[in-house]
C-alpha cells in the first residue's frame, strides 16, 4: 500500500512538472494602460485573443488618466512597471532622457512588424537613436460642436468666432452656452491662441528657451476674456461651481446645455458618449484675428513601450504586434484608442466600416491644419502648473492680461531652466 502511494505521488509530481514546463515556455506578462470603460473592455478582450494567438498570458492593469502618471512614475522609480506600458508621448522624455528608459523596439523587429509605421510616425518616439515606443494613434486638438444643440437653435455649425458670438446671443437666454472652455481645455486653448498669434511653439525648437513673448500670451488671454464677455463660454467662476470635475462629467455638458468644446480628436468617445442629446461633429480650427497659423497641436496620442526591466521583452513585443497589427485584434480594439497609426490597423478598420464619419473627419481636419511642432516640454507638470495658475488668476480678475503675460513668461522661464 505504502509503495503504491509513493508511486502515485511520484507520477503526480512528474505530471505536474511536465505541465509546469509547458506553461513556462509561454511568458507571464503585465500590461498597464489608462482610459475609459470602452477602452478597458476592448483591450481586455483583445488581450484574451492575443493570449490564444501568442501563448503569452497578460495581466491587465488599467485605470483612468487621473493619477496614472503618478503611479507609473512610482513604478518606474522602483523598477516595478508592467512589461507593456501605455505611455503618453511627452512622458517618454521624462522617463528616457537618453533613450535608455525603455527597451529599444528596433531590437525586436522580427517580432514586431515596424513596417506598419512610416519613419515620420516613428520619429517622435526615437530618442538618441533608440525607438522607445510605437505610436498607437496620432492625435491633434480641434473644435467639436453638438449638431443637435445648434439645430434646435436654428443655427449652422460655427465657422468663426463671430458665428459663436452670434450663437451666444441666441442661446444664452435659454441658459445654453454655444461653447465651453475651462480647466485643462482652457489651458490647451490659450496655448493654441498663443501659437496662432506667434506662429511658433512656446520654446525654440530643440531648446529650453522660451519663444513666446508676454504680448503673445496677453493676446491669447484677451481673446479668452472676449469669449467670456460675449457669453460664448461660462466664466471660470461659474464653471467652477460644479466642483472638481472634467467637462464630460459636468451635468451642463451631459444634459445638452453646452454646444461644443475643444479636445484631442483621439478622446472623441470620452466627450461624445456621455451626451444625452445629439452627437459631436468636428470643425476646422477657429482662428483669432491676426493668426499666423491654425495653432493646431499634433502629437502621437500615446505609444506602447516595453519596460527595460521586463524579463521577456521578446514576448512583450509579440503581444504588442498582436494588438496593433493582427487583423482580429484590431477589429476587437476598434477605435478605442483613436484613429490607429499602424497602416494595417487603419486599413482593416476602414474596410470593416468601424471608423465613424466623425472620427475620420476629425482626423482629416487635424492632418490638414497647420500648427507648431509640439515640444514635449509643454506637457511637463512644472510647465503646466505655471499655465494653470496664471490663467486662473487672470480668469478671476486678479491680474490684467499684460500682467498675466509677464507673470507667465517669468514662471515659464524659471520652470524651463530647472528642466
Amino acid at each position, binding site marked *: 500500500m505504502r509503495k503504491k502511494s509513493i508511486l502515485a505521488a511520484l507520477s503526480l509530481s512528474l505530471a505536474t512538472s511536465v505541465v509546469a514546463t509547458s506553461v513556462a515556455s509561454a511568458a507571464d506578462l503585465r500590461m498597464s494602460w489608462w482610459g475609459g470603460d470602452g477602452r478597458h473592455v476592448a483591450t481586455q478582450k483583445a488581450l484574451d485573443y492575443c493570449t490564444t494567438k501568442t501563448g503569452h498570458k497578460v495581466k491587465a492593469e488599467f485605470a483612468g488618466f487621473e493619477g496614472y502618471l*503618478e503611479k507609473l512614475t512610482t513604478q518606474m522609480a522602483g523598477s516595478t512597471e508592467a512589461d507593456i506600458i501605455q505611455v503618453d508621448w511627452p512622458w517618454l522624455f521624462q522617463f528616457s532622457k537618453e533613450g535608455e528608459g525603455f527597451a529599444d523596439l528596433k531590437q525586436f523587429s522580427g517580432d514586431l512588424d515596424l513596417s506598419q509605421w512610416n519613419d515620420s510616425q516613428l520619429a517622435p518616439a526615437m530618442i538618441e537613436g533608440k525607438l522607445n515606443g510605437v505610436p498607437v494613434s496620432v492625435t491633434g486638438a480641434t473644435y467639436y460642436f453638438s449638431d443637435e444643440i445648434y439645430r434646435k437653435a436654428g443655427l449652422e455649425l460655427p465657422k468663426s468666432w463671430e458665428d459663436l458670438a452670434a450663437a451666444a446671443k441666441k442661446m444664452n437666454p435659454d441658459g445654453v452656452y454655444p461653447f465651453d472652455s475651462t480647466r485643462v481645455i482652457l489651458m490647451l486653448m490659450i496655448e493654441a491662441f498663443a501659437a496662432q498669434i506667434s506662429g511658433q511653439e512656446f520654446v525654440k525648437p530643440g531648446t529650453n528657451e522660451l519663444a513666446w513673448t508676454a504680448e503673445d500670451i496677453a493676446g491669447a488671454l484677451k481673446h479668452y476674456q472676449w469669449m467670456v464677455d460675449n457669453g460664448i463660454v461660462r466664466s471660470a467662476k*461659474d464653471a*467652477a461651481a460644479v*466642483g472638481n470635475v472634467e467637462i464630460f462629467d459636468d451635468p451642463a455638458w451631459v444634459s445638452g446645455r453646452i454646444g461644443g468644446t475643444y479636445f484631442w480628436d483621439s478622446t472623441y468617445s470620452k466627450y461624445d458618449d456621455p451626451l444625452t442629446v445629439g452627437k459631436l461633429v468636428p470643425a476646422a480650427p477657429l482662428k483669432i484675428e491676426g493668426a499666423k497659423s491654425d495653432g493646431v497641436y499634433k502629437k502621437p496620442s500615446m505609444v506602447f513601450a516595453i519596460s527595460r526591466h521586463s524579463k521577456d521583452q521578446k514576448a512583450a513585443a509579440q503581444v504588442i504586434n498582436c494588438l496593433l497589427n493582427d487583423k482580429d485584434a484590431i477589429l476587437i480594439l476598434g477605435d478605442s484608442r483613436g484613429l490607429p497609426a499602424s497602416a494595417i490597423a487603419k486599413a482593416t478598420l476602414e474596410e470593416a466600416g468601424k471608423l465613424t464619419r466623425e472620427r475620420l473627419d476629425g482626423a482629416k481636419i487635424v492632418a490638414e491644419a497647420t500648427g507648431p511642432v509640439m515640444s514635449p516640454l509643454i506637457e511637463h*507638470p512644472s510647465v503646466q502648473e505655471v499655465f494653470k495658475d496664471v490663467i486662473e488668476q487672470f480668469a*478671476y480678475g486678479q491680474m490684467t492680461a499684460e500682467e498675466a503675460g509677464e507673470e507667465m513668461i517669468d514662471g515659464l522661464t524659471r520652470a524651463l531652466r530647472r528642466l
Partner: protein
Amino acid sequence: MSGDSRLLGFWYVLPYLIGLLVFTAIPFLGSLYLSFTDYRLMQGASFIGLENYTDILTRDRTFTRSFNVTMLYVLITVPLKLAFALFIAGVLNSKLKGIGFFRTAYYVPSILGGSIAVAVLWRYMFADTGFINMMLTSIGFEAINWFGNPGTALFTITLLRLWQFGSAMVIFLAALQSIDKSLYEAAAIDGAKPWRAFFAITLPLLTPVIFFNLIMQMVQAFQEFNGPYVITSGGPLKSTYLLPLYIYEMAFKKFDMGYASAIAWVLFAVIMVLTLIAFWSSKHWVYYAGDKRS
C-alpha cells in the same frame, strides 16, 4: 522566569516592531534625509544642505499661500468641531427613548467621513445644481456658488470635516457620563442654574478630554487631504490648497521628492510646536482628578 519565557513576549511583539521599523521609522528618517537633497524620482540625489528649507521659508509663494490656508482651516475647523461634538454629546447624554439608536446614528459619519465616496457625495451636494442649492432656492434664497468663490470653497471643506464629529463626540459622551451626579445635586441645592453648573462643574471636569480631543483633532486637521483633493482640487485660486495637497503634488506630479520631504518636515515642525504649546498651556486650564487646584 526563565530566559525563554522572558523572550516569549518579545517574539509576540516582533511582527509589530518589524512593521513599525519598515513602514514607519525607516521612511520617517528617510524623508528627513531626503529633505536635505534635491532628489527627484528617476534621477539621483545630491546633498544640498538647507537649500530646500530656505526656499520654502523665503521664496516659495505657493508654500506661503498653502500654509496660510492650512492655518485658517485648522483654526476654524478644530474649535467648531470640538464645540459641536460637545453639544451633541450633551444632547445624547440625556435619558431619551431610543438614545442608543441616536448615539449610533451620530457616529456613522465618522466611519464614512474620510472616504473618497463621501467626498464625491459632498461635491454633488454642494454643486451649483446640487441638493443644498435646491433646498436654498426652494425656500426663496439665491443659489450659492459654493466651489467658485474662494471663501465658500474653504467653508464646504470645513463642513465635511465638521460632519465627522463622531469620534470626538463619543469621547465627550464617555467623559460626561463619568461625572459624579452628586456634584450637580449639590449645585442645584445651592441654587445654581444649569448654565452655571455647566461652566463650574461640567467644563472643568471635561478639560482633560477637551485637551485630548484638541490635540487629536488638530493633528488630523493638519493632515486633511481627501476633501480638497476630490472636491476642489485645491482651487479656486488655491483657496483650499492645504499643505498635504501641496506635498502630494510636489512629490507625485512634479516628482520633486526632496522638496516635498522638506515641506512635510516643516508641517511636522508646525504640528509639533503647536502641540508643545498646547501641552505647556494645559497646566493653566486642564484639571485632573486629585489635582490640588481642583
